């Protein structure tokens, strides 16, 4: 392991809670509905994070707890029953209904598991109910996806068929690219989790080889291991380096010759390197500060340093699973400062003191930093954009070079005034 510097910080945080992941999960599985059992704050949070994505009837909603629900628990269970009945009669196309716990439902100890169990019996063969918590007292941002996937594992049937299972939400086009490349490598049985339809869950077992596409799935990985799956240890497929190592690790698990991997992906690598050049020109030598949010920070830091030659000031992450991130940390340059957790005020002090060229941060902090003259990139964009894989390396770099390029355009006089 390279000599990176690990720090922990506690204090006030500026990070989304796990409910936010509903924003991309509901798009991944269009036959599922996410029903948050929570407060008006939860409802407001999701619609604010989802921004302009207002649909006629979205596939997520909130059963808002009211004063009378807090008075007695039995009452709350009945109320939830009623809400679910309404919802299902209104939306008969729903195949899986996620009951999502929130801060208030956790604090009043509303037992969503029991509710889900009862509902499963009643709606047998029509709708499946699963529950998980996206509460801010237990989860940050992307951990919500971890919770949702973990909740689906018990529904996955067993099979000893050999297969490659890609775990973590991917953009559909990226997923298709990956599958094509794996097929070229000679791995034909490939499935994704989460699937594109909530009812098409892959079967798993001891010959399932799990390759993670996202770094925030600690609980899911643990439960997949319990089901006998083999977890392929690899960095994450961000950038050329990460993706190459990722493909190599998968090939190794399937006993595919390394040379074959290189043969298939080297044209992609060459093409990607060429595309990366113009971004590297802008990013090279620029100083980067990553605030914690998506748990993608370590992989992004690795990519932006190793492939785009940026200097890393500080790499924040809301939560660090050293085991899962082992391969990534190994690729980081020596003396990288990793900070797990957050004290947002102290961290912003360090941002200002270090005078970075670019800060990756949440939407609440971006404009205030811009107003102080510091260029920023929203971390939420990483979870909405197709950034995985060799083909997307230049697009990923583009997300970071664009704010710098824009800043340059706006501060340089290029036209002579006539």
């Amino acid at each position, binding site marked *: 392991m390279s000599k990176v510097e690990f720090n922990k910080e506690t204090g006030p945080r500026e990070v989304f809670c796990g409910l936010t992941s509903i924003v991309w999960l509901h798009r991944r599985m269009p036959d599922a509905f996410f029903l948050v059992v929570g407060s*008006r704050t939860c409802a407001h949070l999701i619609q604010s994070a989802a921004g302009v994505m207002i649909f006629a009837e979205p596939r997520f909603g909130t059963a808002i707890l009211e004063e009378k629900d807090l008075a007695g628990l039995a009452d709350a269970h009945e109320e939830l029953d009623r809400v679910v009945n309404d919802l299902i009669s209104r939306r008969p196309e729903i195949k899986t209904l996620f009951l999502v716990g929130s801060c208030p439902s956790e604090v009043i100890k509303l037992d969503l598991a029991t509710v889900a169990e009862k509902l499963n019996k009643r709606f047998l063969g029509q709708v499946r109910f699963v529950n998980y918590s996206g509460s801010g007292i237990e989860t940050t941002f992307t951990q919500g996806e971890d919770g949702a996937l973990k909740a689906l594992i018990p529904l996955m049937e067993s099979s000893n068929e050999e297969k490659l299972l890609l775990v973590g939400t991917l953009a559909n086009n990226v997923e298709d690219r990956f599958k094509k490349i794996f097929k070229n490598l000679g791995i034909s049985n490939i499935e994704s989790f989460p699937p594109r339809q909530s009812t098409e869950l892959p079967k798993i077992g001891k010959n399932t080889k799990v390759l993670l596409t996202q770094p925030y799935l600690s609980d899911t990985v643990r439960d997949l291991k319990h089901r006998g799956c083999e977890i392929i240890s690899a960095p994450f497929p961000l950038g050329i380096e990460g993706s190459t190592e990722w493909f190599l690790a998968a090939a190794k698990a399937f006993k595919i010759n390394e040379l074959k991997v290189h043969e298939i992906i080297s044209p992609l690598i060459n093409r990607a390197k060429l595309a990366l050049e113009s971004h590297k020109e802008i990013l090279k030598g620029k100083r980067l500060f990553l605030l914690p949010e998506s748990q993608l920070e370590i992989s992004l830091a690795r990519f932006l340093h190793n492939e785009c030659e940026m200097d890393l000031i500080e790499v924040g992450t809301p939560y660090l699973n050293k085991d899962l991130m082992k391969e990534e940390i190994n690729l980081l340059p020596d003396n990288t400062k990793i900070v797990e957790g957050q004290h947002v005020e102290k961290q912003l002090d360090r941002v200002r003191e270090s005078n970075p060229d670019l800060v990756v941060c949440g939407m609440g902090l971006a404009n205030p930093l811009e107003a102080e003259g510091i260029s920023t990139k929203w971390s939420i964009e990483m979870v909405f954009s197709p950034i995985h894989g060799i083909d997307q390396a230049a697009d990923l770099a583009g997300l970071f070079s664009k704010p710098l390029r824009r800043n340059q355009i706006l501060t340089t006089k290029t036209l002579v005034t006539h």
Partner: protein
Amino acid sequence: MELTLWTYEGPPHVGAMRIASSMKDIHYVLHAPQGDTYADLLFTMIERRGQRPPVTYTTFQARDLGGDTAELVKKNIKEAVERFKPKTLLVGESCTAELIQDQPGALAKGMGFDMPIVNLELPAYSKKENWGASETFYQLTRTLLKEKVSSSEKINPLRWKELGRRPKVNILGPSLLGFRCRDDVIEIQRILSEQGIDTNVVAPLGASPDDIERLIDAEINICLYPEIAEASCEWLKRNFGMEYTNTIPIGIKNTIEFINEAHNKLDLPLTNKEELENKSKLPWYSKSVDSNYLTGKRVFIFGDGTHAIAATKIAKEELGFEVVGLGTYSREMARQVRATAKDLNLEALITNNYLEVEDAMKKAAPELVLGTQMERHSAKRLGIPCSVISTPMHVQDVPARYSPQMGWEGANVIFDNWVHPLMMGLEEHLIDMFKHDFEFVDGHQSHLGHTAKQTKDFLNSDEKKEKISKEGIIWTESGRAELTKVPFFVRGKVKTNTEKYAILRGIPEISDETLYDAKAYFS
């Protein structure tokens, strides 16, 4: 428990944040878990603010719940006070903290600070954003002025005469995330100044705690947004005898009425009465011949109480529209909205459910919708033009240009914003004249969206000469041919109306004659 897919208002602590963020030298310590910081983006993204809201979130976690969350609150309060040195501290809790009952306000008061501390108790499971903003502004005003209550005599609104200066007023209610507040304040100050009235304090927008303490230097209050300021205005009236204005200066008639009200309360003679009629272009634009086509346009109105009521008056009395639906999501304003609706023989829709609003909109079949950003979406789906008149805020509601809703310029802005989505008179006239030209037959889209498309598909699919509509009515060849002659932008409506007529009369087949019968019936 209430199933909510989308909500017009946030929780009450977001209302408190609106007050804190609008002001200077204030800090708000909010006992809240991780995630509640999302509310910052409402200010930094939607309002495009270059400063973070002055809010510290205690960020308690599940593991803290077994331990001492009260200590965590105190630690955060101490750090926030040391770092931000506020002149007044607001302390409160979000929905989850309310359940664990740490009483952060009481804790703060026991910490020995010199500054005033406002303990905010905002019941998250029964109240909403605007109520939270109103309550926060009220508690803040009360905390900062309560010591002056007994020592002050009641304020005589005529005292400016003895003091030998122009009368002074406070403008109360404008806040961040309020609809066009930034520009309304400028417009109203300008109008008051022209009328010989000075502004003492604008609050909460841009005010400091010191300014709140100075509120009683003014003679009367202007209650600009009752959703936010009425409770404070009432308290100031009860305790200091300060009168406040009730008229909301949106639209020409209400702006004039507002000026009259202020003059009356201050006993300041109104010398420019005639001039007021010509301050805005709206009256003339509305009178000009092109606007003839606005007569009787059916409008559906939904928004917060203040803007929905104001829009109704303008629509009916200043633009000559017919109001066919009225509603609000502000339960606090339900009584007033119901009364306004009753005057129009309508039943007001009071709901927080946007799907109910969409249903009502569909039933009312308006030609224009005045609503929130959500009604803009719904109207778009229904192919009806829409103009946004109310919060909840969207980044488009914070335009770069000066764009008030109130006063003279506000009336100009409203005329343009409401009328431009509609087909204007000359345009409508020309299209009517040339409707049989080949250009108009098909393939030309109006800016009204894609309503014509379904009807177009209906006409173009000629596997059969006769065609059965969704309602099971047969369109004969002559009926279909006649329908193609109707200009595309009203074709959908003509088709629906004709079918409605056919069903009503039990006519199984629609011929060209049926179209004319229906036209006569509905005209």
